[in-house]
């Protein structure tokens, strides 16, 4: 348990440090990129569905898989579309 707590604390610092000085221009891509990352709940959804014993859990799990997938793919695609434009202006 203490390991997990330590991991939590360290991840808080990493998150804070990495983002703390980003410029306004990147706020939206960063928001939507982070949004895509929390779609990692898909991993949890898959695991829980894989172990589902009864119909109810299975249905809940599958719903979660579906929603999390939307979160993941939507998040990464939208972010990429946004960043594509930033790239354009480097030309």
């Amino acid at each position: 348990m203490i390991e997990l707590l330590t991991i939590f604390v360290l991840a808080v610092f990493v998150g804070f440090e990495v983002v703390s000085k980003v410029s306004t221009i990147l706020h939206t891509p960063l928001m939507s990129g982070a949004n895509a990352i929390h779609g990692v709940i898909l991993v949890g959804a898959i695991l829980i569905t894989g172990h589902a014993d009864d119909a109810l859990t299975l249905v809940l799990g599958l719903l979660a898989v579906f929603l999390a997938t939307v979160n993941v793919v939507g998040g990464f695609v939208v972010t990429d579309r946004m960043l594509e434009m930033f790239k354009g202006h480097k030309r």
Partner: protein
Amino acid sequence: MTWVQLAYLAAALCFILALKGLSTPKYARVGNLVGAAGMALAVVTAFATAGDHHVLIAVAVVVGVVVGVPAARQVKMTAIPQMVALFNGVGGAAAALVALAEFLENTGAGVLFVVATALTVLIGSVSFSGSLVTFLKLQEIMTTRPVLLPSGQWIGIGVAAVSAVLLVATPATGSAALLVLLAVAGLALGVLFVLPVGGADVPIAISLLNAFTGLAVAASGYVLENTLLIVAGTLVGASGTILTRLMAQAMGRPLTNILFGAFKAVPPAAASGEQRTVRSGTVEDVAILLGYAHSVLVVPGYGLAVAQAQHAARELAQLLESRGISVDYGIHPVAGRMPGHMNVLLAEADVPYENLKELDDVNPGIGSVDVVLVVGANDVVNPGARDEPASPIYGMPIFDVDRAKAVVFMKRSMRPGFAGVDNSLLYHPKTTLLFGDAKDSLTKLLAAVKQL
């Protein structure tokens, strides 16, 4: 099963690198791809180690892809904030569902486990319903103004108290019914949280809900004892929190004011009784004004995005420059509907980066600007934000365009901007209004200036 855990660790690493990349313009796109790769790795790993129901899972994933990808591909740039809100909401819902399912599977687990489960369900529900309301607001399906229920403050506090009680009661009793009740309370809390947030501040609410979803994912990581979920969720939670603060700073207001300010704000005085006059000009008037200026400042806003007028604006600017007129763009941090919105659009139109000026670059010398061309912007040039303490947007930094020599507003009507606040500058003698869609007006203006 060491390789599984190593794969998860590698994915966590990818996520950190993605965040790092996304915070420097140079590596932002690569960063996002690295994040996607990490996600793919994690998902494949999870799929490979899922016990059963592989086909059903695969189907659910495919359906998700079929729904998500086209939605993300086809959404207009201006609608991205509401899209992000939606994706955020479904993520929160997924976290809550995962925790609920795990709870049903694992009856009789330890207290700490149930605490984490309840927390996930609560935060996930808040994030889900809150995001849905922000979506409705941004999509203008409902009003963008702050919605104040009668004694809404007390309802909010009441629901929060109920949630807190349920949060304690669920682990104490281990009852699934209470957990479901908690989810319902969470849904109500999310709605109550976002309703009073003023339209202009919704993106900040999204960012905060984003951080919430991250925390829900982290908590579900405890539930499932999965370090990847803990790391990724916490990263998003922490970076989302910081980002929310940064965004509030860019709006020039403290976060509490943004989230709860509506409870205190005086309703804007109905100034409509005065019937003040405005001066509306023709395209030719404005063309002459521009043609004989030495320096022009373009202040783009949400209307430019709606009209997709960025290319037209760039062409006009180039034409003016070819006539020896210096043209700059004044980019307000919250112009448009997402931070950096204008930068994205103008970058798309190949406007050189050097011409994009920020508030501090522009305001000191704005007195010597001959013409300010306000293209579909409103709140970001509203002097009320500077001068009227009673204004709901008081305190937001603005471009002081009322100090320039002449101002041209391009908009379609007298309707106010996102914040729903009247703009006294529209009635100012040095202001000319050029009514119409921004793209139309700009194109006509281009032709008219060429004629000079």
